[in-house]
């Protein structure tokens, strides 16, 4: 007679604390930009409504660099998701590679933003436009640097052997914040660079 064997108890559901926390932080960061861009759009409507041009004399916003940054950041979404998918399969080498590529794409975006600032020839003291554009794009660079630090920290923790296929909340959380940062750029791209 064979003994009746009960199926094993289900694994304890790990609360995804870090992912939820990162989502809240991403939502708060996103809201900062909603506020900034709302003020930007309101100011632009006022200036244009008064019959003046939005950008001051001599200033220009080329589209090539913002488009390149957008494509770069969209690529970074794929590399970040690659990192998450790889660690979920315990493929650590691919995960390290993907996080490294994501960081490189982030650095490329910072370089391109500073180059764009140089090309714009927009003085911060030129009026409301300079203050708004530099504050918004500068704040986005700050968010990008924070996202890069998050990814780098999780990469180091992964190198230390902390994440597994079953438990990789840290990398997922960094990815959530990264996606929010890219979403913010999408807003900036359409509001500042495209519809100028």
């Amino acid at each position, binding site marked *: 007679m064979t003994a009746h064997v009960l199926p094993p108890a289900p694994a304890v559901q790990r609360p995804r604390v870090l992912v*939820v*926390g990162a989502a809240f932080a991403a939502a708060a960061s996103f*809201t*900062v930009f909603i506020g900034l861009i709302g*003020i930007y759009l309101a100011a632009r409507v006022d200036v244009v409504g008064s019959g003046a041009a939005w950008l001051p004399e001599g200033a220009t916003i080329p589209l090539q660099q913002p488009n390149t940054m957008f494509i770069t950041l969209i690529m970074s979404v794929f590399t970040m998701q690659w990192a998450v998918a790889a660690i979920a399969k315990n493929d650590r080498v691919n995960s390290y590679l993907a996080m490294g590529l994501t960081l490189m794409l982030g650095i490329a975006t910072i370089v391109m933003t500073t180059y764009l600032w140089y090309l714009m020839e927009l003085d*911060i003291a030129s009026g*409301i436009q300079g*203050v708004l554009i530099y*504050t918004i794009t500068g*704040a986005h660079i700050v968010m990008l640097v924070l996202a890069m630090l998050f990814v780098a920290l999780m990469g180091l923790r992964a190198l230390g052997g902390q994440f597994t296929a079953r438990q990789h909340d840290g990398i997922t959380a960094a990815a959530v914040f990264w996606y929010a940062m890219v979403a913010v750029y999408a807003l900036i791209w359409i509001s500042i660079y495209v519809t100028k």
Partner: protein
Amino acid sequence: MALTDTRPETGTDASAVAPSVVPSPLTIFGTGDHKAVGTFYVLAALVFGIAGWVAAALSLGHEVGSNSFLSSSTAMQLGQTSDLGLILLVIVPLFLGLGTYIVPLQVGASTVAFPRAAAAAMWTWLLSSGIFIVASFIDGGFGGSREKSVSLTLMGLGGLIVALLLGTVCVLTTAVTLRTPGMTLDRVPMFTFSMLVGGAIWLLTLPVLLANLLLIWVDHRYSGGTTFGAAATQFEQVSWITHEPQIYAFLIPGLGIIADVIATLTGARLAQRNIFLFAIGAFGVLSVGAWAQPAIYPSVSDDLVWQAMGLLMLLPVLVFFGGVAKALKDGKPSLKSPLGLAVVSLLLTLLAVFAGALLVITPLELRASNVFATGQFVLAIAAALAAAAAGIGYWGPKMTGGQSADGLGKLNVLVLLGGGALGGLSLCVMGFSNRFTGLDGAHDVLIIVSSIGCALLALGGALALLGLLSGARKGAPEAAADAWGTGQTLEWACPSPPPTGNFGDLAIVRSPEPLLDEEV
């Protein structure tokens, strides 16, 4: 899963040594214990509260007569600093402190989520508050003449908003992810639910204030203060957090405290609990005010949505009021001070919302001057302070391990009711002076009455502080785990004060009142 199954993180020996009652400065540096962090928030916010109401009384007193003891620039900066300070240094941190302490206990967690981040948030808030206060007092308030002091004020404000947001993320994450088995979101205690709603609204609105401050700072620092940083318009850009509908966002956790206090001190389950949940949720939705910025949108007070929000806000408050009245009628109210403070808070909330509804009615022309809106602000902040005082009285035995002196609490019921009513209503009455010319002559009297009200509110903060400390004094009667004997939620299942790890084994929660199920 067995009834006594325990999650790994809650598997702590309940007989572990309880922490000291009020954290000593030596132990609190570096601690990530949510109880120490929460207590420190509450203590510091109460001290700031006393100072804030005194500053408000002084800035109002400046309006009396012609021989002012303050220059108008100083009085204006003092008033603006106290307005922002009462929200960001007092009310939000008071609720956040209670949330950091109580929410993990209410959801059956061993700790707050990200305990080190919660501690870092508290210290950053404290440091930034110090910077904000000092910079404001060296002519660095909004529109101040010392450029570097103004920069410092803006940085201090920015720092404390970031800190409050970080602390809010910790509390929200605790409520979302660390609930004990069986505690679904509709079963969480009212205070936890109200922190969820309130915290979410803070996360969606305070970053916009940060955006305002960022623009003011960049313009002030790098562009000569010609647009956003212009001295005359700086405060106008951030003043939306002191006006409706945003001001209500800082009252939301108070509703949860009121509901929890009423349920416990009437000794009965809240009937039609979903109505309370709806009222708190609707109150939260109607308090989103980051879009209503007069500096950006000058005609906002003519906006139909803004006016509708002001009027509709009456609905959830009246529903909530009805629920509380029914609970008091059906239950057996125990006449303890937290119950009285909860009722005072609800009355002041009702007055604030009623004043807000009058404010949006254009034919009344109450927006012609800022006086009526200031009266509404005082009523709202007094309501929040009374709710926080109710929470401190209610959970004080849990926090200190000793029974607080209830006499102090009962005195505080009168003080806060008097302070809120005198401080707020007198200004509201004065707001009608555009319609009733006879009120012009009463200007000085009404301002003096309002100043006295603000002074009483400062006294109310001091009494709440003394009440909390009285539970920690030597010789205070020891508080039982269920200090009121009629506790319904999980915080009353752990010892007072809770040991490290809070709980031992916890049963699976099967209703919103798990302790009553246990008794059955």
